[in-house]
């Protein structure tokens, strides 16, 4: 476990470094999401989830048409999370603007080639800025928020009917608890006792307009979820032992929610200057860009 913990830590740092590199190169991007979610994604991929090897190409495919357009098969980015099998887990990332963070995670875990990131937000590419179903690591359309949990619930219900042992993991952002559909989903997961669903929530307290507390308060989150029939476990979202331990509570009669309280500036305290507007980082001057660039020096060894 000690070795595994080091591995999770190393990959979390790798996610942060790769996202920072990309943000510097592209003059902006979703950096704070990497700061907050790095340990969560790393713990999920290294330890919590039972996934098979990636079925996706190291080089992500070019855009070949949308489903139903008559131009080829539906392309699922879920193939990067391994084969679909009754005994294997599935992973669904809901806040699709975390795409950059997910892509870097896939690179860290050898599921996508480094060159895949060169296709990020390029014309004709599936490596889109807001991940779609054909984007590496994505299996669903989550971009409008709050629909992934319900869609994953439908998948979990089908798998439960068939008696499959694989679990269904969902990554949610805390802002999605402002959407009514999230609560509809929790009441339904609870009603049908879908304990094959495990949800990790990045409670970074941040959203587009500022802090969640100021935009629309969602707290107390744990007791609200419990009141809707879910099981809520609160952890420090950068505490690897706690993240791993919480996942083992899945399958005990109720849908599991691991509330990961995170620091949206973790790893790069420089970001704190931007508080409370951390949602999307766009450099305002060359000087600022250089400041972020200087953070990259020496991070290779992390």
């Amino acid at each position: 476990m000690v070795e595994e913990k080091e591995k999770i830590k190393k990959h979390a740092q790798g996610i942060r470094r790769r996202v920072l590199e990309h943000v510097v190169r592209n003059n902006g991007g979703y950096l704070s999401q990497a700061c907050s979610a790095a340990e969560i994604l790393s713990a999920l991929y290294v330890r919590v989830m039972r996934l098979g090897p990636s079925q996706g190409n190291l080089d992500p495919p070019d855009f070949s048409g949308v489903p139903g357009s008559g131009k080829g098969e539906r392309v699922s980015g879920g193939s990067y999370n391994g084969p679909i099998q009754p005994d294997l887990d599935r992973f669904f990332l809901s806040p699709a603007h975390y795409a950059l963070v997910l892509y870097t995670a896939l690179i860290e875990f050898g599921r996508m080639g480094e060159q895949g990131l060169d296709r990020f937000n390029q014309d004709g590419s599936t490596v889109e800025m807001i991940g779609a179903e054909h984007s590496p690591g994505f299996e669903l359309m989550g971009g409008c928020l709050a629909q992934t949990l319900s869609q994953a619930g439908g998948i979990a219900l089908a798998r439960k009917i068939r008696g499959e042992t694989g679990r269904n993991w969902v990554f949610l952002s805390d802002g999605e608890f402002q959407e009514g559909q999230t609560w509809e989903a929790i009441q339904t997961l609870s009603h049908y006792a879908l304990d094959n669903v495990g949800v990790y929530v990045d409670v970074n307290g941040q959203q587009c307009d500022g802090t969640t507390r100021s935009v629309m308060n969602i707290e107390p989150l744990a007791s609200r979820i419990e009141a809707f029939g879910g099981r809520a476990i609160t952890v420090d979202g950068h505490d690897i032992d706690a993240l791993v331990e919480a996942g083992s509570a899945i399958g005990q009669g109720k849908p599991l929610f691991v509330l990961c309280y995170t620091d949206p500036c973790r790893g790069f305290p420089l970001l704190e200057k931007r508080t409370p507007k951390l949602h999307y980082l766009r450099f305002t001057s060359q000087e600022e860009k250089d400041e972020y660039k200087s953070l990259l020096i020496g991070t290779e060894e992390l």
Partner: protein
Amino acid sequence: MEILSKVHAKNLVAWADKHPEVVVLSADLTGSTEIDLFRDRYPERFFSFGVAEQNMISFAGGLAREGYVPFIHTFSVFIYRQALSQIVNSVAYSNLPVKFFGFLPGITTPGGATHQAIEDLAVMRAIPNMTVLEPGDATEVETILDSVIDDPGPVYVRMLRGEIPRLFSADDPFVLGKPRVLSEGDDVTIVTSGICTEEAMRVTSVLKERGLSVEHLHVSTHKPFDGQELLPSLEKARYGIITMENHSIIGGLGSEISEVVAESGVSAKVSRLGLKDTFAHGGGRSYLSRFYEIDALALVGAVEKVIGKTLEITEADLQGARIEAVHSLAKEEAL
């Protein structure tokens, strides 16, 4: 004319026996959408979602990805108004086989503006990958499900419930994309859909007695909408084309016909009968269809305008074409 009751309820139970992949999803309107018999016969394939349509439709997307074919049942307005983003993002984009059965089209309910689906065809037709169907009688309600399940993607069915007339022979089933020619003639072409077809059939019989040559088409596939099938009927109308629908004149049958006429270069005026860009209100079907001018008398008026002369057709003439005993049995549906 034969009037049947709970046509969908009985048909679905018999039909579903050979379709184990079909599951039925309900949003607390199980009796009102005629899935109570299905629930009782196949309890393990029936899922209650409560009054929460957005979540239900996203769940359906998940079930469809796993090989099930969810049949969503609720009132139309609670599908396309309440959960449009879920229809688009959780179902239609991915071309998933989720089938939406929307009830209470237009003025068929006294439930008022909150319950009357008056722009559902306009909205659903505009969504890529969506097939849009509207049965017009008991035969079509009984025979539409094979086309629904054969479609690999999402389908919206503008459904009828309660007491429904049999306008078309039971051995003349619904065929996807195929309009029905109910009368042939070359003075005026009348195109109708849904409950308006029965109304128009009464009018055409009187018009013929007055020597008018009338082409009457019934449309039950709104999308894909094949203009080629209709073109001969549209081209031959000497005076003009009239559409009548239980829907807004924007985005439904009248728009479909106008698009075909414009794109094909047919030179004809199109008169659209329907809700004239207005919401309706709660009331009985015959009162509402008279008030909003989508009944037999309104159709007569439109024909007179198109041909440029009065036909001296009275309400009594039209009532004479009705089979009163049939209609006295058909009560206004309660919620």
